[in-house]
């Protein structure tokens, strides 16, 4: 096989894995067929989170933080073990975010910084490429104390989260707006073409109901910034920030596959450096860095003199003109310890002040089956898969509801969507077990087990129509899905504006029956600030966040 064929294979691999990843994110939605006569639980037809389970950083960090490797995360060894021998092939061949950054870097620029000598210089190994190691050791330190911060910058969760919660909803809104604008022109051909395009999109990718997420601007801006940085520095993210790349760099320490340079053959054309993705100095005369190389093969394929060769057990002799390659990571022991220590210190800092359990927002309603908060934060990688799969658009990324530490972890906003009592999809797609997979019986409860509770509903009697305005309503009671209903009614006499006595049914909550699903809050007609609302107290996952001395099952 020639090196050009190998490079084309790499390109095909990148395209394939990129589209598989996007397809999996698209399929993380309520797109199922199910026959209630056969199964009680709705199951997704595809293992939509499988791509995330191949992520070695997610695996290592959840292992360090929680002490266990959840279900499919064992797949990560499929990436990690070959890396130990080969180096960071994942970054160059598989990583869908790496591919996106590759493409963003690749297309032509008119700026002179992106050409010739300036580009050549920017492709040499730079000190900023150490930052990713500091980040990696920082999140490792935090994980050691049970706070999983890696997910914020781990490329696979980051891409799933950005595409799922920011990009796709934006595209959907854009498609709708443009179709509407085209129709409103009143010009038939334009309207027809726009309608046709929309119909194709509708069938091909658009979901039945597009979810929209709370506060995704930050997620979108971060994503766009990372992509745009490629226009200044080739693969800035992969070279400088990515903690997964750093981890794979560290694990390449003993790789037996690498670059061999032939000083004699080199004609000094610089093409290897011009096409370098990793910033790893493939050029003769500089020290090649195993831990930075993505194995994209561009250097070897573009070398006209046959001076560069990737091979097992490369001969890397150190001469004055051509320093040997190295598999060492360019970070001093002191910096490693410092980064780890910073991560370790960050966790108590996050959690200092009020007691950990007290500091959380009362509206931090975690998905059903979520682990207790401290265990939840050991595992959640903020990939947003639960948010995407929720058929009711109930789950959203937090901003500060669970503190700085829990940025972008999922919580329910019942005003936007409630938790469907019979649904267990969020637990099915969670790749790390932060949300445990529930059976139908565990979710709704049966004679022996109580239902899964997320919180408790409370009435705001100053806003509730029968309580404050002598007006009949009880939509909340109609929607309460438990039987017997957790919202009960008492017919009472209210006085209306004319002083007449009116009989109205006034709703109340029985906290022993309420599961905190939020259906009442969702359905309440007092639209802007609901007259019934759910807070997290009473949630099954917490022993302390309770209100009743004894709770009926």
């Amino acid at each position, binding site marked *: 096989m020639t090196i050009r064929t190998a490079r084309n294979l790499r390109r095909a691999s990148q395209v394939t894995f990129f589209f598989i990843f996007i397809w999996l994110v698209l399929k993380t939605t309520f797109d199922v067929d199910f026959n209630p006569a056969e199964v009680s639980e709705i199951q997704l037809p595809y293992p939509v989170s499988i791509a995330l389970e191949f992520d070695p950083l997610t695996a290592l960090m959840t292992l360090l933080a929680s002490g266990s490797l959840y279900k499919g995360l064992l797949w990560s060894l499929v990436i990690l073990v070959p890396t130990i021998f080969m180096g960071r092939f994942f970054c160059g061949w598989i990583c869908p975010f790496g591919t996106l950054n590759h493409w963003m870097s690749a297309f032509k620029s008119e700026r002179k910084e992106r050409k010739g000598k300036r580009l050549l210089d920017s492709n040499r190994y730079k000190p900023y490429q150490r930052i990713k190691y500091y980040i990696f050791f920082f999140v490792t330190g935090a994980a050691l104390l049970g706070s999983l911060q890696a997910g914020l910058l781990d490329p696979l969760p980051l891409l799933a989260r950005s595409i799922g919660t920011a990009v796709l909803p934006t595209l959907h809104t854009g498609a709708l707006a443009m179709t509407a604008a085209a129709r409103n022109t009143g010009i038939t051909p334009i309207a027809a073409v726009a309608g046709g395009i929309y119909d194709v999109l509708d069938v091909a990718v658009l979901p039945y109901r597009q979810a929209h997420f709370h506060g995704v601007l930050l997620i979108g801006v971060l994503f766009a910034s990372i992509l745009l940085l490629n226009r200044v520095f080739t693969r800035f993210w992969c070279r400088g920030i990515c903690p997964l790349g750093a981890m794979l760099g560290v694990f390449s320490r003993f790789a037996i596959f690498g670059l061999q340079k032939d000083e004699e053959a080199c004609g000094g054309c610089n093409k290897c450096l011009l096409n370098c993705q990793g910033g790893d100095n493939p050029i003769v005369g500089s020290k090649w860095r195993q831990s930075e190389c993505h194995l994209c093969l561009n250097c070897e394929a573009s070398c006209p003199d046959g001076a560069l060769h990737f091979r097992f057990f490369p001969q890397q002799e150190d001469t004055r003109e051509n320093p040997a390659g190295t598999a060492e990571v360019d970070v001093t022991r002191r910096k490693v310890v410092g980064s780890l220590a910073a991560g370790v210190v960050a966790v108590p800092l996050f959690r200092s002040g009020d007691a950990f359990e007290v500091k959380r927002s009362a509206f931090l309603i975690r998905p059903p089956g979520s682990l207790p908060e401290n265990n939840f934060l050991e595992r959640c990688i903020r990939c947003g898969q639960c948010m995407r799969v929720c058929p009711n658009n109930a789950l959203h990324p937090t901003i500060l509801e669970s503190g700085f530490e829990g940025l972008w972890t999922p919580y329910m906003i019942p005003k936007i969507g409630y938790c469907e009592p019979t649904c267990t999809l969020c637990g099915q797609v969670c790749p790390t077990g932060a949300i445990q997979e529930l059976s139908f019986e565990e979710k709704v409860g049966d004679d022996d087990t109580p239902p899964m509770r997320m919180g408790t509903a409370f009435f705001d009697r100053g806003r509730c*129509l029968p309580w404050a305005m002598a007006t009949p309503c009880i939509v909340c009671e109609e929607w309460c899905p438990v039987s017997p209903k957790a919202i009960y009614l008492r017919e009472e006499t209210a006085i209306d504006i004319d002083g007449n006595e009116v009989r109205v049914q006034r709703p109340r909550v029985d906290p022993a029956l309420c599961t905190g699903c939020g259906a009442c809050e969702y359905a309440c007609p007092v639209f802007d600030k609901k007259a019934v609302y759910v807070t997290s107290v009473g949630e099954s996952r917490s022993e302390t966040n309770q209100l009743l001395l004894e709770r009926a099952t």
Partner: protein
Amino acid sequence: MERRDFLKKTGPAVALAAVSGTTGLTFHNREPTARRTVLSKTASFEVPPDSNFPILTSARNEDPAAALNAALEGIGGIGRFVKTGERVVVKPNVGWDRSPAQGANTNPALVSEMVRLCFGAGAAQVTVSDVSCNDPRRSFLRSGVREAAESAGAEVKLPAEEDYGEIDLGGSVLREWEVLRHFVEADRFINMPVIKHHNLTLCTIGMKNLYGILGGRRNRLHQEIEQSIVDLAAFTRPTLTVVDGTRVLFRSGPQGGSLDDVRIENTVLCSTDQVAADARGAEFLGLDPDRVGHIVLADRAGVGTLDYQAAGYKEII
């Protein structure tokens, strides 16, 4: 400066100014354009009264399809209601993500049989739809209605944003409101409610089931629930009301959730008079129809007759 030069230099600026000015004047002070879809009812769904038949029939049978057929025969058979080439919309209650046994939705066996009967009578198209309360995809799946309707050849239409339009319902509470297109753009409308308890209206049967043709924020309608039900019934006037009394949700309505809330009655009612159907149905919940607000109000408004015995009622054993 030459005149020619002057014109050349000022020409583009003048042209741009002219376009700007014309645009401004053209769009100045226009009424905000209504960009809403406005729908209208394409046909009167009702069939003319026929003194050969009772207005309400009831049949009992453990087989829901057999009960439906018996009740339908008694009131004139499907041929009286659906003619060759007509577009029929069937409106079961698929409000909730509940299984058939829980009694919160219309029995799927009745829906599939009804669809089959319509096609048997020559219907060109049978559509089954409902604006569910819970997620429609889940509700149509778990209720078994999607499977039942599709296997019988009907087209199941889940409510989609682009299928809503505004309509003047002409009621005293319900005037301009969003309605799902499928329920007004048809020749025949078959209402297929299930008998359920409801704390505000005491019961939800046929007329209340029509809430499911509405979009918009219908949770506000509870404030004038009786009048809005009557308005909606007076607007819709279905061809036929087929009441599912196979399972009756006698408490914790309209969602139920426990099998203990359900009583098996194995009954199907067919009626050309929605008030009569509701009055008979209410009795399954132990209610006196004379004391059910919206039924009484509908009777007074002339939507139908509460006293079904006098108007013509037949029980088929």
